[in-house]
């Protein structure tokens, strides 16, 4: 079954080809689009295979587990790969009319591909050190993408992003070392069994804290998220969109993976920490959003706030809670990326992200208003859009476990989310345009550019609505995934090559 490495190998292959076509930007554009389309098809195939045949695994180089590196795809992994491929594909489309020629000629497209390669690698690997390597691939690609162009804001945000993420990597590396020192293995399934067998003299829990912190930094939870609001609003719009959609979610994915598969011994202590972190993440994140006046800054803080919801699902540690977290991941990536896309579109039309200088868009282009409302209301959890169901599952899981206070706080956060979405709506769409603003028009856009910028937005908006109405199907997937995660015996057997 070779399908499972393709999400890593394909982007690499295309990145290499693009390097050979360094000077031919239009060729790179096409390659990027074709590559991400093939990737999307592969991910769909992988996903359907996992759904019908169960966990897939590949022992690379045919080395037996736990000696070689194993790639494994359960539902969570394959869903994440699928969504990341969707985002890669829509970003490829969106880049056509939003990224400048200079950045294109300095490796923008190869970097996008190595970024996706790292992300998919992280989703698929079953080996902790290998996970570290994919994190680094993702990280260096994101560093370069973030500062590509080298404006002052990019550099300032980049420095913080860089430093704080490297600290995360340092903890990760040390934690992997310590874990090997204690267990003698790196394979996650093997780790799971060894740790369960040997029990914990406390050191496993200590090491799990390093993982919690390291992944916590990557997934931008309180009080580790500083790098995100400093940097996400500085690069060009397609870059912040793909970052906003995917990067933190790799952290969340890793948290879910490690804390359901490996670190389950002292889980009550850990889940309590996670729940407390979740509450503070939600609240401080949404507070941040409520106090900003720039579209991308508002949206960036919302990422944090919503990571809080996902982490809350993990912290509840019930089937429904984890299913909620998985549902939330799926929903959030799509909606968040789309909001950044629309933010970029607004900036293209009116030249700024500052709410003060914007206005009057609804009167001129009501259709953009509609395209904004779909993801914005979904983000705010308005039914029947996708975000409502994500919120519903997590709130229900919380109430079932009698975490009344946590639930009440999460609902209050949801109200503030609604507030800051209406703030953007009020200022950008409803408010009359400021007097000295130039006329809003698409005159800079050729028809093909117009199509290229709208098609990903429309596509993701439709997806948001579809998820909202096909809750049954998506919930089944999330629920199955949660069951798999909490009873990982199939995953373990498959990874360790037992049948």
């Amino acid at each position, binding site marked *: 079954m070779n399908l499972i490495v393709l999400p890593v190998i394909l982007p690499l292959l295309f990145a290499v080809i693009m390097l050979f076509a360094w000077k031919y930007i239009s060729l790179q554009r096409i390659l990027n689009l074709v590559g991400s389309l093939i990737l999307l098809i592969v991910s769909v195939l992988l996903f359907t295979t996992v759904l019908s045949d169960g966990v897939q695994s590949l022992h690379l180089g045919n080395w037996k587990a736990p000696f070689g590196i194993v790639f494994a795809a359960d539902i969570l992994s394959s869903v994440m790969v699928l969504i990341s491929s969707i985002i890669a594909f829509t970003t490829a489309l969106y880049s056509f009319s939003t990224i400048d020629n200079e950045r294109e000629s300095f490796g923008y497209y190869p970097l996008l591909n190595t970024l996706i390669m790292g992300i998919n690698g992280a989703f698929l690997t079953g080996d902790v050190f290998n996970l570290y390597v994919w994190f680094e691939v993702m990280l260096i690609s994101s560093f370069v993408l973030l500062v590509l162009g080298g404006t*002052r804001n990019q550099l300032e945000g980049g420095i*913080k992003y860089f430093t704080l993420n490297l600290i995360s990597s340092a903890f990760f590396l040390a934690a992997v070392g310590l874990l090997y020192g204690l267990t003698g293995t790196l394979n996650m399934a093997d780790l799971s069994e060894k740790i369960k067998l040997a029990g914990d003299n406390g050191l496993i829990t200590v090491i799990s804290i390093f993982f919690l912190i390291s992944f916590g930094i990557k997934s931008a939870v309180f009080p580790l998220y500083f790098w995100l609001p400093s940097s996400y609003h500085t690069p060009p719009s397609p870059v912040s969109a793909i970052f906003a959609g995917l990067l933190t979610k790799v952290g969340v994915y890793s948290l879910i993976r490690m804390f359901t598969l490996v670190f389950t011994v002292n889980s009550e202590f850990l889940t309590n*920490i996670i729940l407390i972190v979740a509450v503070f993440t939600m609240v401080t994140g949404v*507070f941040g959003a409520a106090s900003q006046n720039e579209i991308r800054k508002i949206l960036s803080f919302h990422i944090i706030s919503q990571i809080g919801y996902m982490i809350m699902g993990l912290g509840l540690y019930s089937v429904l809670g984890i299913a909620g977290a998985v549902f939330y991941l799926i929903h959030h990536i799509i909606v968040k990326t789309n909001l950044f896309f629309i933010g970029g579109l607004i900036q293209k039309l009116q030249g700024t992200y500052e709410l003060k200088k914007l206005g009057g868009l609804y009167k001129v282009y009501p259709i953009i208003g509609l395209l904004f409302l779909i993801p914005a209301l979904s983000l705010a959890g308005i039914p029947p859009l996708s975000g409502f169901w994500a919120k*519903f599952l997590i709130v229900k899981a919380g109430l079932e476990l009698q975490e009344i206070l946590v639930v009440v706080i999460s609902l209050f956060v949801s109200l503030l989310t609604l507030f800051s979405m209406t703030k953007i709506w009020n200022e950008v769409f409803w408010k009359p345009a400021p007097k000295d603003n130039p006329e809003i028009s698409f005159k800079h856009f050729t028809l093909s550019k117009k199509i290229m910028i709208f098609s990903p937005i429309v596509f993701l908006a439709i997806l948001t609505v579809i998820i909202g109405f096909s809750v049954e199907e998506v919930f089944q997937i999330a629920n199955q995934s949660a069951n798999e995660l909490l009873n990982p015996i199939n995953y373990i057997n498959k990874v360790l090559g037992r049948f």
Partner: protein
Amino acid sequence: MLFFVLLGFITAVLVPLIKKISDNFLSWIIPIIPASIFFYFASFYYQIADGEVIKVSYSWIPSLGINFDFYIDGLSLVFAMIISLVGTVVYLYAGSYLKGDTRLSKFYIYISIFMSSMIGVVTSDNLMTLFIFWELTSISSYLLIGFNHEKESSRYSALQALLVTGLGGLALLAGFILLYITTGTWDISEINKMPAEVIGSSYFFLIVIFILLGTFTKSAQFPFHFWLPNAMEAPTPVSAYLHSATMVKAGIYLMARLNPAFGNSILWNDLLLVFGTATMLFAAVLSFKQTDLKKLLAYSTLSVLGTLTMLIGIGSDLAIKAFIIYLIAHSLYKGTLFLVAGIIDHETGTRNIEKLSGLRKLMPITMIIAVAASLSKMGIIPLVGFVGKETVYASVLELPIFGNYLIVITILANMFVVYITAMVGFRPFFGKLKSTPKNPHEAPFRMWSGPMFLALSGLVLGIFSSLFLNKLINSSELGIISERLNIPVKLWHGFNLELLLSTITVLLGLFLYFKREYFLKFVASFSSVKFVQPSYYYQFIFDGTLSLAKYITSKIQNGYLRFYILVILLTTFSLIAYTLHTFYSFNEINIGGSVSVYEVILAFILIISTLLAVSAKSRLAAIVGLGGVGYVIALFFLIYSAPDLAMTQFSIETLTVILFVLVIYKLPKYLSFSSTTRRIRDIIVASFAGLTMFFLVLVISGTSLTSELKEYFIAESYPSGKGLNVVNVILVDFRALDTLGEITVLAVAAIGVYSLLKLRKKDN
């Protein structure tokens, strides 16, 4: 069923297409939609009136138990018919009211979404689908209140309404889920069959609070009533429809709907009684100093909403009867009066009551409609309002303990309602004609025909109340209380106490109307005190939350990287230390084998170099220190059986040092930024962290470890990997994927270095 419930949504999608033909065509054709929905529901009338209920179910999310279950009994039918009937009138009216306005199609889109959502609320038997429709009414209301969105006050009011009802919606969600956890079903009809389980639940208190938060905010009960008068920013057809006849009654509907499950609880009844009565009186008094036609009507709506809540709280058979009649009567006459206010505004250009007078000659038809609706509202025989008010009084009088007090309050409140009615329904038409911003004419047909129809219905329902209402109330499954009612509805009950009280109310109200100037002096000083107004607290909480958010964010996201790192380090190591302390019991520590003198010397050099790198006053010295560290580590690799590592470390360290020197060669002097106290603080934090790492390494390296991996690699390296150097075999074979990633990192870093050096753009 599903089709007619969702017809509004379908319409919303079709509107932009129909608009392509012409706005005028759209506005003439579209009233067919609500009318067809009306006839659809009206067709159930005889079935329902004969005591049947209609249940239809469509599967949606079976695994969560959430399906489109529709359930129609007397209560649902009454609501559904009101919604579609007033809807028809409003659709027709708006076509003329917004004639020539480019936003006409948007209006129809929003209002169609609203209508379907509202129908959904009153026909859903599943708590979750009800909730979904409920939230959609809030969203469509937001869009409609903000219809004139270029006005700041419209945006403000829209947001206020959304936040208040949104807060309630979220509470409602929690309440519904708790109700589900308690009863194990989302089906309202099932839940209503188990009042004992509901009231006996340990969550009961929370459920009641959450649900009532939802219904009170939606139905603008005190202290959440303030959003409703502000919502008058919406175009008048919207006010008539959403903020009087239908949406604000969604909360009332839900309380009535859930009453069979909750009605036996004292908590539930008392809360409804207290807040209902408070709203009824408070809103009535606040109305007094209003001069805006629509605001006056809004306050009287509030008062009626309070009365309806109070009636559910009383919960007797008579009260339920009063509830239904009053509900119908109010929707008919209040909708009418709003539309009349819209006509006046549309024709004269003002809604200020002080500027309006003597319009009877210019707008005779409007006047007739206004007077008919007003009489119904005042409770004058033979209109349906009369029947309503009589029954309300009767049910209050019947109340055993508080009856006497409550009747006084009710009369007081109704006195103001009579006053408001006189102000809106009579005052603009009588007296001397005043000049207005526009020259008034009689309203066009589409604007007066609907209100006229509603006013006539009030008359017909009043006179023939024993015919239509009697059957509906007494023989249908009402669903508000579990038993069937058996109280005949008729227009004339003879000369009794209620009639007397009713007459007194009207007289008092008229007295207030004629002596308005005199009383205004008192009220003005009373209600201008901001502390008595809940909207003051809304603003306080709103501003307070925002300032708190700003403050916290400015403290957390302050821009200082060193602060960020400090927080991360403190979080990490305090957690680590805590976990070690809690879970790890100290055993004997194995400090490993002996070391030779030259190793100690090397270690010493490493520490000195590290300290040099830390404390150097020049960059070059720091780099020398850094290089020292790297080379010593390379030597240690060599000593401890890792020659490949040593080689790599040595060459890479050399490269790093060269790079460093190249980059910083030309930079000016090293600056020292931090104060001594800050240094000391950082030294303490760093030492704490360093010590923790020291301890962890010591403990873990001292445990016993058998690694299958090591044995396997050594055994298989040559046979399978064809290599004698096992480390190399691991890198290129066993773990080749790591190496692939590693090379990618290098390549990407190279692109990064190149682009950073070559591409320099400016921020725009």
